[in-house]
Protein backbone atom coordinates (compact mmCIF):
# COMPACT_ATOMS: atom_id res chain seq x y z
CA UNK A 1 0.00 0.00 0.00
CA UNK A 2 1.44 3.32 -1.07
CA UNK A 3 0.28 6.44 0.73
CA UNK A 4 -0.88 9.03 -1.79
CA UNK A 5 -2.81 12.20 -1.16
CA UNK A 6 -5.94 12.80 -3.16
CA UNK A 7 -4.17 15.86 -4.56
CA UNK A 8 -2.94 13.72 -7.46
CA UNK A 9 -6.41 14.12 -8.98
CA UNK A 10 -6.24 17.89 -8.51
CA UNK A 11 -2.84 18.00 -10.19
CA UNK A 12 -4.30 16.75 -13.47
CA UNK A 13 -6.95 19.47 -13.31
CA UNK A 14 -4.34 22.11 -12.50
CA UNK A 15 -2.26 20.94 -15.45
CA UNK A 16 -5.20 21.27 -17.85
CA UNK A 17 -5.91 24.77 -16.54
CA UNK A 18 -2.29 25.73 -16.36
CA UNK A 19 -1.37 25.38 -20.01
CA UNK A 20 -2.97 28.72 -20.80
CA UNK A 21 -2.64 30.42 -17.43
CA UNK A 22 1.08 29.81 -17.05
CA UNK A 23 1.78 31.32 -20.46
CA UNK A 24 0.14 34.53 -19.30
CA UNK A 25 1.62 34.62 -15.81
CA UNK A 26 5.09 33.24 -16.43
CA UNK A 27 6.86 35.60 -14.05
CA UNK A 28 4.07 36.41 -11.58
CA UNK A 29 4.30 34.84 -8.15
CA UNK A 30 1.52 32.38 -7.47
CA UNK A 31 0.10 33.42 -4.11
CA UNK A 32 -0.64 30.50 -1.87
CA UNK A 33 -3.54 30.58 0.55
CA UNK A 34 -3.16 32.39 3.86
CA UNK A 35 -2.77 29.65 6.43
CA UNK A 36 -3.32 29.97 10.16
CA UNK A 37 -0.88 27.77 11.99
CA UNK A 38 -1.59 25.88 15.18
CA UNK A 39 0.79 26.00 18.10
CA UNK A 40 1.78 23.29 20.55
CA UNK A 41 2.98 23.73 24.11
CA UNK A 42 2.32 26.63 26.43
CA UNK A 43 1.73 28.54 28.61
CA UNK A 44 5.17 30.10 28.17
CA UNK A 45 6.89 28.11 25.44
CA UNK A 46 5.21 27.24 22.16
CA UNK A 47 6.33 25.63 18.97
CA UNK A 48 4.74 25.40 15.54
CA UNK A 49 5.58 24.47 11.97
CA UNK A 50 4.96 25.51 8.37
CA UNK A 51 5.10 23.34 5.29
CA UNK A 52 4.07 23.28 1.66
CA UNK A 53 4.46 21.01 -1.35
CA UNK A 54 4.53 23.07 -4.54
CA UNK A 55 2.86 21.37 -7.48
CA UNK A 56 3.09 24.24 -9.98
CA UNK A 57 6.53 25.21 -11.33
CA UNK A 58 7.57 28.84 -11.07
CA UNK A 59 7.43 31.59 -8.50
CA UNK A 60 5.35 31.15 -5.39
CA UNK A 61 4.46 33.19 -2.31
CA UNK A 62 3.14 31.41 0.78
CA UNK A 63 1.92 33.23 3.88
CA UNK A 64 1.48 31.65 7.31
CA UNK A 65 -0.09 33.35 10.33
CA UNK A 66 0.60 32.64 13.97
CA UNK A 67 -1.61 34.02 16.74
CA UNK A 68 -0.28 34.10 20.29
CA UNK A 69 -1.95 34.52 23.69
CA UNK A 70 0.51 37.20 24.86
CA UNK A 71 3.47 39.25 23.57
CA UNK A 72 6.30 36.91 22.66
CA UNK A 73 9.61 36.46 20.86
CA UNK A 74 10.06 33.97 18.05
CA UNK A 75 12.79 32.26 16.02
CA UNK A 76 12.50 29.84 13.11
CA UNK A 77 14.00 27.90 10.23
CA UNK A 78 12.98 26.54 6.83
CA UNK A 79 14.51 23.56 5.02
CA UNK A 80 14.38 21.89 1.63
CA UNK A 81 16.44 19.40 -0.40
CA UNK A 82 16.50 18.39 -4.05
CA UNK A 83 18.32 15.90 -6.25
CA UNK A 84 20.30 17.84 -8.84
CA UNK A 85 19.27 15.45 -11.62
CA UNK A 86 15.58 15.88 -10.64
CA UNK A 87 15.68 19.64 -10.05
CA UNK A 88 12.80 20.13 -12.48
CA UNK A 89 10.41 18.38 -10.13
CA UNK A 90 11.98 18.82 -6.66
CA UNK A 91 13.86 22.11 -6.43
CA UNK A 92 12.72 24.89 -4.13
CA UNK A 93 14.64 28.19 -4.17
CA UNK A 94 14.08 30.43 -1.15
CA UNK A 95 14.21 33.98 -2.56
CA UNK A 96 13.06 35.87 0.53
CA UNK A 97 11.67 34.56 3.79
CA UNK A 98 10.31 37.25 6.10
CA UNK A 99 8.59 37.44 9.47
CA UNK A 100 6.27 40.41 9.87
CA UNK A 101 4.75 41.60 13.11
CA UNK A 102 2.90 44.88 12.94
CA UNK A 103 5.25 47.29 11.22
CA UNK A 104 8.37 45.21 11.91
CA UNK A 105 9.71 43.05 9.09
CA UNK A 106 12.55 40.63 9.81
CA UNK A 107 14.34 38.86 6.97
CA UNK A 108 15.64 35.33 7.40
CA UNK A 109 19.34 34.68 6.91
CA UNK A 110 20.20 32.20 4.18
CA UNK A 111 22.31 29.33 5.42
CA UNK A 112 25.15 28.22 3.19
CA UNK A 113 23.80 25.62 0.74
CA UNK A 114 24.98 22.11 1.57
CA UNK A 115 26.10 20.84 -1.82
CA UNK A 116 26.73 17.12 -2.23
CA UNK A 117 27.54 15.12 -5.35
CA UNK A 118 23.86 14.44 -6.01
CA UNK A 119 21.89 16.81 -3.78
CA UNK A 120 21.62 20.39 -2.57
CA UNK A 121 20.16 21.15 0.86
CA UNK A 122 18.97 24.70 1.50
CA UNK A 123 17.97 26.29 4.78
CA UNK A 124 17.20 29.77 6.08
CA UNK A 125 16.79 30.88 9.69
CA UNK A 126 15.83 33.78 11.92
CA UNK A 127 17.03 34.32 15.50
CA UNK A 128 14.71 35.63 18.22
CA UNK A 129 12.77 38.83 17.55
CA UNK A 130 9.77 40.37 19.33
CA UNK A 131 6.54 39.36 17.61
CA UNK A 132 3.74 40.84 19.72
CA UNK A 133 0.61 38.70 19.76
CA UNK A 134 0.61 37.73 16.11
CA UNK A 135 3.01 37.44 13.20
CA UNK A 136 3.05 36.22 9.65
CA UNK A 137 5.78 34.34 7.86
CA UNK A 138 6.01 34.83 4.11
CA UNK A 139 8.03 32.45 1.98
CA UNK A 140 8.75 33.85 -1.49
CA UNK A 141 10.54 31.48 -3.76
CA UNK A 142 10.61 29.46 -6.91
CA UNK A 143 9.87 25.79 -7.48
CA UNK A 144 11.08 23.60 -10.31
CA UNK A 145 13.83 24.39 -12.82
CA UNK A 146 13.69 28.11 -12.02
CA UNK A 147 15.93 28.93 -14.97
CA UNK A 148 13.58 31.36 -16.69
CA UNK A 149 12.25 28.69 -19.05
CA UNK A 150 8.50 28.30 -19.39
CA UNK A 151 8.25 25.06 -17.40
CA UNK A 152 4.87 23.38 -17.47
CA UNK A 153 3.48 20.25 -15.90
CA UNK A 154 2.82 19.54 -12.25
CA UNK A 155 5.83 19.07 -9.98
CA UNK A 156 6.20 17.94 -6.38
CA UNK A 157 8.65 20.12 -4.43
CA UNK A 158 8.44 20.47 -0.65
CA UNK A 159 9.77 22.70 2.06
CA UNK A 160 9.01 22.84 5.76
CA UNK A 161 10.00 24.86 8.80
CA UNK A 162 9.60 25.21 12.54
CA UNK A 163 9.12 28.15 14.87
CA UNK A 164 9.87 28.51 18.58
CA UNK A 165 7.82 31.09 20.47
CA UNK A 166 8.56 32.28 23.99
CA UNK A 167 6.09 34.41 25.89
CA UNK A 168 7.70 37.53 27.28
CA UNK A 169 7.39 37.60 31.08
CA UNK A 170 7.89 41.05 32.64
CA UNK A 171 10.97 41.35 34.84
CA UNK A 172 10.36 41.31 38.64
CA UNK A 173 11.70 44.87 38.72
CA UNK A 174 8.83 45.90 36.43
CA UNK A 175 6.33 44.38 38.84
CA UNK A 176 7.95 46.27 41.70
CA UNK A 177 7.63 49.52 39.79
CA UNK A 178 3.94 48.86 39.05
CA UNK A 179 3.27 48.07 42.72
CA UNK A 180 5.13 51.17 43.84
CA UNK A 181 3.15 53.31 41.41
CA UNK A 182 -0.16 51.83 42.59
CA UNK A 183 0.93 52.36 46.18
CA UNK A 184 1.78 55.96 45.39
CA UNK A 185 -1.63 56.52 43.78
CA UNK A 186 -3.32 54.96 46.82
CA UNK A 187 -1.47 57.23 49.29
CA UNK A 188 -2.32 60.30 47.21
CA UNK A 189 -5.99 59.29 47.05
CA UNK A 190 -6.17 58.86 50.86
CA UNK A 191 -4.55 62.26 51.47
CA UNK A 192 -7.01 63.98 49.16
CA UNK A 193 -10.04 62.27 50.62
CA UNK A 194 -11.52 64.37 53.48
CA UNK A 195 -11.58 62.58 56.85
CA UNK A 196 -14.97 60.95 57.50
CA UNK A 197 -17.24 62.90 59.81
CA UNK A 198 -17.03 61.58 63.36
Amino acid sequence: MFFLQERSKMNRFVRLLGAGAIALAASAAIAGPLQTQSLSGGPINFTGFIADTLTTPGNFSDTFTFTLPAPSIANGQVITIFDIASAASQQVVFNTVTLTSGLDVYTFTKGTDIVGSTNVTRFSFLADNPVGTSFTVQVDGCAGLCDGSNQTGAIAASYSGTFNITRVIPEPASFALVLAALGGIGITARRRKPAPAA
Partner: protein
Amino acid sequence: MKLKNLVMAALMAVSSASALAEDLNQIVNLVAGANGNFSAPTTATHLLAGPFTDTFNLGVVPFDANINASLNTIGLSAIQDIDFISATLNGIPFSFQRTDLPFGATTIVAAIETGTLPTTLFAAGTPLLLTITGFAGEGFNTNATVAASYSGTVNVVPVPEPGSAMMFIAGFAAIGWLVRRRSR
Protein backbone atom coordinates in the same frame (compact mmCIF):
# COMPACT_ATOMS: atom_id res chain seq x y z
CA MET B 1 21.27 -12.90 43.79
CA LYS B 2 20.34 -9.68 45.59
CA LEU B 3 22.80 -7.67 43.50
CA LYS B 4 21.32 -9.13 40.31
CA ASN B 5 17.80 -8.11 41.40
CA LEU B 6 19.05 -4.63 42.18
CA VAL B 7 20.61 -4.34 38.74
CA MET B 8 17.47 -5.69 37.08
CA ALA B 9 15.32 -3.22 38.98
CA ALA B 10 17.58 -0.35 37.98
CA LEU B 11 17.49 -1.43 34.32
CA MET B 12 13.71 -1.72 34.37
CA ALA B 13 13.38 1.69 36.00
CA VAL B 14 15.54 3.25 33.28
CA SER B 15 13.69 1.50 30.44
CA SER B 16 10.25 2.41 31.78
CA ALA B 17 11.31 6.04 32.15
CA SER B 18 12.36 6.23 28.50
CA ALA B 19 9.17 4.39 27.51
CA LEU B 20 7.20 7.33 28.93
CA ALA B 21 9.25 9.84 26.94
CA GLU B 22 7.59 10.70 23.65
CA ASP B 23 8.16 8.47 20.64
CA LEU B 24 6.23 9.90 17.70
CA ASN B 25 5.04 7.58 14.93
CA GLN B 26 3.54 9.24 11.89
CA ILE B 27 2.46 8.39 8.36
CA VAL B 28 3.76 10.53 5.51
CA ASN B 29 1.28 11.27 2.73
CA LEU B 30 3.40 11.80 -0.36
CA VAL B 31 2.06 14.39 -2.81
CA ALA B 32 2.27 13.34 -6.46
CA GLY B 33 3.44 15.48 -9.34
CA ALA B 34 2.11 14.71 -12.80
CA ASN B 35 5.62 13.61 -13.79
CA GLY B 36 5.32 10.65 -11.42
CA ASN B 37 7.57 12.09 -8.69
CA PHE B 38 6.45 12.43 -5.08
CA SER B 39 7.33 14.81 -2.27
CA ALA B 40 6.16 15.63 1.23
CA PRO B 41 7.15 17.56 4.33
CA THR B 42 7.84 15.84 7.66
CA THR B 43 7.32 17.59 11.00
CA ALA B 44 7.51 16.52 14.64
CA THR B 45 6.80 18.33 17.90
CA HIS B 46 8.05 17.15 21.28
CA LEU B 47 6.39 18.42 24.44
CA LEU B 48 8.18 15.99 26.77
CA ALA B 49 11.91 16.11 27.44
CA GLY B 50 14.13 13.09 27.06
CA PRO B 51 15.35 10.60 24.50
CA PHE B 52 13.05 9.85 21.58
CA THR B 53 12.78 7.50 18.62
CA ASP B 54 10.43 8.95 16.01
CA THR B 55 9.32 7.15 12.85
CA PHE B 56 7.80 8.40 9.63
CA ASN B 57 6.16 5.70 7.53
CA LEU B 58 6.43 6.43 3.81
CA GLY B 59 4.55 3.27 2.87
CA VAL B 60 5.50 0.57 0.39
CA VAL B 61 6.47 1.90 -3.03
CA PRO B 62 5.40 -0.36 -5.92
CA PHE B 63 8.49 0.62 -7.94
CA ASP B 64 12.23 1.05 -7.46
CA ALA B 65 12.73 4.59 -6.20
CA ASN B 66 15.46 7.17 -5.75
CA ILE B 67 14.79 8.87 -2.44
CA ASN B 68 16.42 11.84 -0.71
CA ALA B 69 15.42 13.67 2.45
CA SER B 70 16.25 16.62 4.69
CA LEU B 71 15.87 17.42 8.39
CA ASN B 72 16.33 20.65 10.30
CA THR B 73 15.85 22.04 13.76
CA ILE B 74 16.58 25.38 15.45
CA GLY B 75 16.76 25.91 19.19
CA LEU B 76 18.00 29.02 20.95
CA SER B 77 17.19 27.89 24.50
CA ALA B 78 17.23 24.59 26.38
CA ILE B 79 13.46 24.18 26.27
CA GLN B 80 13.46 24.51 22.44
CA ASP B 81 16.43 22.27 21.84
CA ILE B 82 16.38 19.10 19.76
CA ASP B 83 19.63 17.16 19.47
CA PHE B 84 19.65 14.61 16.67
CA ILE B 85 21.56 11.44 17.50
CA SER B 86 20.88 9.64 14.23
CA ALA B 87 18.46 9.52 11.32
CA THR B 88 18.13 6.65 8.87
CA LEU B 89 15.83 5.57 6.06
CA ASN B 90 15.75 1.77 6.17
CA GLY B 91 19.20 1.88 7.72
CA ILE B 92 20.72 4.37 5.23
CA PRO B 93 22.05 7.24 7.40
CA PHE B 94 21.64 10.98 7.16
CA SER B 95 24.71 13.14 7.58
CA PHE B 96 24.42 16.13 9.89
CA GLN B 97 25.79 19.65 9.89
CA ARG B 98 25.58 21.85 12.95
CA THR B 99 25.50 25.64 12.79
CA ASP B 100 26.40 27.83 15.76
CA LEU B 101 24.53 31.09 16.24
CA PRO B 102 25.79 34.19 18.04
CA PHE B 103 23.39 35.07 20.82
CA GLY B 104 24.13 38.35 22.51
CA ALA B 105 27.56 38.05 24.04
CA THR B 106 27.66 34.27 23.74
CA THR B 107 27.37 31.65 21.03
CA ILE B 108 24.80 28.88 20.96
CA VAL B 109 26.65 25.82 19.77
CA ALA B 110 24.68 23.61 17.37
CA ALA B 111 21.72 26.02 17.47
CA ILE B 112 20.76 24.67 14.04
CA GLU B 113 21.17 21.00 13.10
CA THR B 114 20.68 20.15 9.42
CA GLY B 115 20.45 16.57 8.21
CA THR B 116 20.81 15.32 4.64
CA LEU B 117 20.03 11.93 3.14
CA PRO B 118 21.56 11.97 -0.36
CA THR B 119 19.68 10.31 -3.22
CA THR B 120 19.66 6.57 -2.59
CA LEU B 121 18.00 3.77 -4.53
CA PHE B 122 15.42 1.69 -2.69
CA ALA B 123 13.92 -1.50 -4.10
CA ALA B 124 10.25 -1.77 -4.95
CA GLY B 125 8.03 -3.46 -2.39
CA THR B 126 10.02 -2.60 0.73
CA PRO B 127 8.27 -0.76 3.55
CA LEU B 128 10.03 2.58 3.91
CA LEU B 129 10.59 3.76 7.46
CA LEU B 130 12.35 6.98 8.38
CA THR B 131 13.72 6.61 11.93
CA ILE B 132 15.05 9.56 13.90
CA THR B 133 16.59 9.29 17.35
CA GLY B 134 17.54 12.21 19.53
CA PHE B 135 16.95 14.21 22.68
CA ALA B 136 14.23 16.75 23.28
CA GLY B 137 15.14 19.54 25.67
CA GLU B 138 18.68 20.23 26.89
CA GLY B 139 19.44 19.13 30.43
CA PHE B 140 15.86 18.47 31.51
CA ASN B 141 14.71 15.41 33.40
CA THR B 142 12.92 12.94 31.18
CA ASN B 143 9.24 13.88 30.73
CA ALA B 144 9.73 17.47 31.91
CA THR B 145 7.73 20.01 29.88
CA VAL B 146 9.46 21.31 26.75
CA ALA B 147 8.35 22.68 23.39
CA ALA B 148 10.83 21.52 20.77
CA SER B 149 10.25 20.62 17.14
CA TYR B 150 11.99 19.71 13.91
CA SER B 151 10.95 19.46 10.30
CA GLY B 152 12.16 18.03 7.04
CA THR B 153 11.21 16.95 3.55
CA VAL B 154 11.36 13.77 1.51
CA ASN B 155 11.43 13.26 -2.28
CA VAL B 156 10.64 10.00 -4.08
CA VAL B 157 11.47 9.49 -7.77
CA PRO B 158 10.40 6.24 -9.46
CA VAL B 159 13.14 4.50 -11.46
CA PRO B 160 13.03 4.35 -14.38
CA GLU B 161 11.44 7.77 -14.75
CA PRO B 162 7.90 7.54 -16.13
CA GLY B 163 9.09 9.49 -19.17
CA SER B 164 11.79 6.89 -19.78
CA ALA B 165 9.26 4.09 -19.29
CA MET B 166 7.11 5.61 -22.03
CA MET B 167 10.12 5.72 -24.33
CA PHE B 168 10.81 2.03 -23.66
CA ILE B 169 7.21 1.16 -24.49
CA ALA B 170 7.28 3.32 -27.61
CA GLY B 171 10.57 1.73 -28.66
CA PHE B 172 9.28 -1.83 -28.23
CA ALA B 173 6.09 -0.88 -30.09
CA ALA B 174 8.15 0.48 -32.97
CA ILE B 175 10.29 -2.68 -33.11
CA GLY B 176 7.16 -4.82 -33.02
CA TRP B 177 5.69 -2.85 -35.93
CA LEU B 178 8.89 -3.16 -37.95
CA VAL B 179 8.97 -6.94 -37.36
CA ARG B 180 5.37 -7.24 -38.53
CA ARG B 181 6.18 -5.24 -41.67
CA ARG B 182 9.12 -7.49 -42.52
CA SER B 183 7.23 -10.72 -41.89
CA ARG B 184 4.54 -9.72 -44.41
